[in-house]
């Protein structure tokens, strides 16, 4: 069944909302003559039509709730409904950011409690809670690094980034005014430490490293890397995208890093929501802690206090010189509630077990698929299994085709063509919330598809996949060449 756009379902005058009557006023409106003249152009629908429309749209989507979602580097784990329920307690949801702080002690306590958990887990002394997502957390970390360097009168100009890094790393470094230099990987899929050491110098502000890295591997030389950076006067930003593999196993502080963001919407299940909202608290070392952005919560004898200004005695008086503000208000509070709900549910023991199971699941996939796919690097791997496209050589089937064929088997494809350091990458992240039964069904399907591809008889089948979806492959070139980014009434088009 095709589902039209809401604009194509318009019945003028209809509304799915009944309004209370507007109160009488003595003096008419006070709009200063700025009242809107024309229609907005919004369509009118009744409530039954709206509910059915979005229900039907939802049925064209794939989510963790509907099936296995091994999208590498995205940590698509189960999203508990308890998180949603607690975030909707009116004591959390119906609280305004600018209430007198004596009326929001529970909200401040929640922020401080979550911060405390994050600090204990990572062993880091401080955390900036306000970043709204991973990339935003990177920005906070890099701003803190720049502030710290400037505070010691040594801003520097270069940030080093491994070639396997997520695109957000160089983009963030550039946003903070740094030039970006790429560091190559070695044959084992890890940072080439010698190359890094060669690149370190008096103008290097920081090294941004993802660990476990985007090939799914732990950077064995991490402690040495941090030491080398610090020795060269540079700071270490660790991208926390893959933190799920090591929480409860590795204290971040022990790796010598200065900053790491944590994606609450991935690692702490809060959930991804089709593209957010996220939340990216950034843990900071002692070197960076004084520069953490506004606002932040401190516990005082009189209760929890929200520091919103540099002039606040809890700021300046306490040796803090915040580098600024990341966004409006006090962080992604609704996401905090969900994250704390998850963390308390899992506990210290459960979080460690989650890392163990995530890593075990990835290694199990690797073990069970290594003979039919081509693993890019030697294991053990961490929470992801990386393959390249050598197994597809001479089959005429591409990584893209192979992934699209998996959709017809009932699975969300793995991450494709990332990381860039291997050819035709297939990056699978099973997470700890998948059962062995599910992995086995997936393994069977992947093996069958790999055999089908290698048979040489199925090139057209793969090229045409997926076959069973609400839409077949979409023409992305056409979309980009002459972008149509909004609906326009057919009449208007005819006029144009």
């Amino acid at each position: 069944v095709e589902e039209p756009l809401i604009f194509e379902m318009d019945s003028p005058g209809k509304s799915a909302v009944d309004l209370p009557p507007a109160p009488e006023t003595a003096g008419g409106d006070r709009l200063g003559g700025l009242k809107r003249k024309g229609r907005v152009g919004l369509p009118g629908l009744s409530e039954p039509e709206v509910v059915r429309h979005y229900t039907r749209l939802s049925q064209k989507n794939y989510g963790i709730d509907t099936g296995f979602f091994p999208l590498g580097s995205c940590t698509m784990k189960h999203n508990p409904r308890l998180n949603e329920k607690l975030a909707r307690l009116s004591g959390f949801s119906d609280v305004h950011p600018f209430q007198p702080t004596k009326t929001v002690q529970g909200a401040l306590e929640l922020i401080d409690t979550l911060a405390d958990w994050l600090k204990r887990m990572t062993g880091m002394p401080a955390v900036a809670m306000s970043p709204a997502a991973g990339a935003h957390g990177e920005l906070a970390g890099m701003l803190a690094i720049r502030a710290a360097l400037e505070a010691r009168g040594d801003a520097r100009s270069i940030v080093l980034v491994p070639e396997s890094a997520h695109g957000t790393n160089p983009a963030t470094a550039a946003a903070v005014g740094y030039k970006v230099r790429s560091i190559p990987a070695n044959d084992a899929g890890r940072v080439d430490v010698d190359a890094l050491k060669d690149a370190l110098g008096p103008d290097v502000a920081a090294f941004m490293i993802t660990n476990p890295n985007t090939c799914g591997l732990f950077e064995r030389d991490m402690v040495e890397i941090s030491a080398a950076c610090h020795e060269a006067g540079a700071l270490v930003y660790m991208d926390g995208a893959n933190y799920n593999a090591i929480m409860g196993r590795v204290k971040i502080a022990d790796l010598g890093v200065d900053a790491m963001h944590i994606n609450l919407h991935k690692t702490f299940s809060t959930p991804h929501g089709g593209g957010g909202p996220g939340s990216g608290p950034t843990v900071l070392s002692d070197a960076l802690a004084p520069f953490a952005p506004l606002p932040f919560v401190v516990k005082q004898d009189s209760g929890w206090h929200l520091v919103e200004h540099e002039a606040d005695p809890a700021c300046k008086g306490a040796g803090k010189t915040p580098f600024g503000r990341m966004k409006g208000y006090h962080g992604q509070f609704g996401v905090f509630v969900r994250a704390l709900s998850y963390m308390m549910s899992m506990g210290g023991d459960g979080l460690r077990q989650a890392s163990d199971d995530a890593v075990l699941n990835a290694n199990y996939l690797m073990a069970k698929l290594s003979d039919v796919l081509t693993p890019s690097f030697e294991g053990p791997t961490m929470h992801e299994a990386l393959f390249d496209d050598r197994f597809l050589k001479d089959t005429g089937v591409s990584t893209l085709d192979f992934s699209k064929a998996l959709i017809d088997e009932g699975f969300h494809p793995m991450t494709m063509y990332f990381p860039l350091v291997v050819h035709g990458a297939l990056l699978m992240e099973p997470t700890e919330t998948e059962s062995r039964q599910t992995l086995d069904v997936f393994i069977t399907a992947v093996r069958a598809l790999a055999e089908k591809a290698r048979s040489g008889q199925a090139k057209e089948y793969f090229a045409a996949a997926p076959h069973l979806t609400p839409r077949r492959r979409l023409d992305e070139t056409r979309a980009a060449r002459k972008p149509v980014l909004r609906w326009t009434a057919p009449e208007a088009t005819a006029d144009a």
Partner: protein
Amino acid sequence: MRYLPLTDDDRKAMLDAVGVASVDDLFRDVPDSARGGEPTDLPDHASEMAVERTLSAMARKNVTGQDAASFLGCGAYRHHVPASLDYIIQRGEFLTAYTPYQPEIAQGTLQYLYEFQTQVSMMTGLPVANASMYDGATACAEACAMAIRVTKRDRVLLSGGLHPHYTATTETFLKHTSAEVEALGPNPLAVEDLVGRVDSRTACVVVQNPDFFGHLKDLTTLADACHEVGALLVVAVAEPLSLGLVNPPGEMGADIVVAEGQSLATPTNFGGPGVGLFATREKFMRQMPGRLCGETVDEDGRRGFVLTLSTREQHIRREKATSNICTNSGLIALAFTVHMTLLGEAGFTGLAEVNHATAVRLAEKLEQIKGVKVIPSAFFNEFAVRLPKDATEVVDKLADKGILAGVPAARFWPEYEELADVMMVAATELNDEAAIDAYVAALKEVL
């Protein structure tokens, strides 16, 4: 541990398949000095009941908009959220999906983003909109960065009527670029001379409408002044419901409109998450930050939707990207678009009218209290008032009486003594006559 499907039997069998004796072996790449990361000082896993009890206890320590009559705004507004909206955004197919990278199995997300972009475009009066940003403040910062890219100029002028968090966020974002940010100070009483400050070095001027103090303004002259010298006009909207009643920025000459969508999407949630709206002119489309959803066709020629123009984005462009934004506010964008669809033209304009009338009603009653002055002559659903007493104290005392009366300007500008008696007050459809009367009565008592 209810979220973990592996049993000990599974783990054993899987370790055998992998060929290692224990999970520890899988972590052998971790340097010895970094082992032993177990957070032994954290409590163990807990039942749903126990977690619910602990968090409910925290929730009960807060005073909610149901416990007290609430008249707070300043960029976060309390509106009725339809029950069907909250149902729809909780459907697992929306809630547990990823960013729609695989369009064949993400047409649900993509179609609503396309509907969202269209609605934002219609509301703002500008032809193209993106698929959401983090919030209004970051959208404002991104708009300035975009204006700098478009104009290849460096000066950014921020109105003193801009939300102070938007100002601070923009300053932070642009701190280490070549940009020079001039942020005017707050002055709810004076007319700000923005026109006189625009010059050929100006990349953009940012104003908020209605501004932070509630002033509703005609921006046409300012837009003309900007365009005359080749600068862009960026308009921030902190209460998008105002667009149901007020001339949209696009029609007053804005080049970029940014807004905070929370008011039409979610409860106030102590300030987050929100959703940033971002719209601009067609010619700037390829300079926009954030995700964009576009229409196309599939192999069978059927209409479908995809993320598009991703060559602007960091996963392709890396350090040359228009922005580092990746995850944005998909689910809050869904909430926004569902609410707008529920409202429709009649509901959106009607709800705006109810809000304005409620605020006018409140203003009329407050003006009758001796010493209380409503500052803006034109406003939507929020206005600054000058009190005969220190506003922070008044707010504090009224909170004890179960009235969340407003936000003292001193919360944002503690250093401006002349703002000590100023308070921002908002009224929405949720404030009924009884609440207004209780407010007025309580205010009289404390003045």
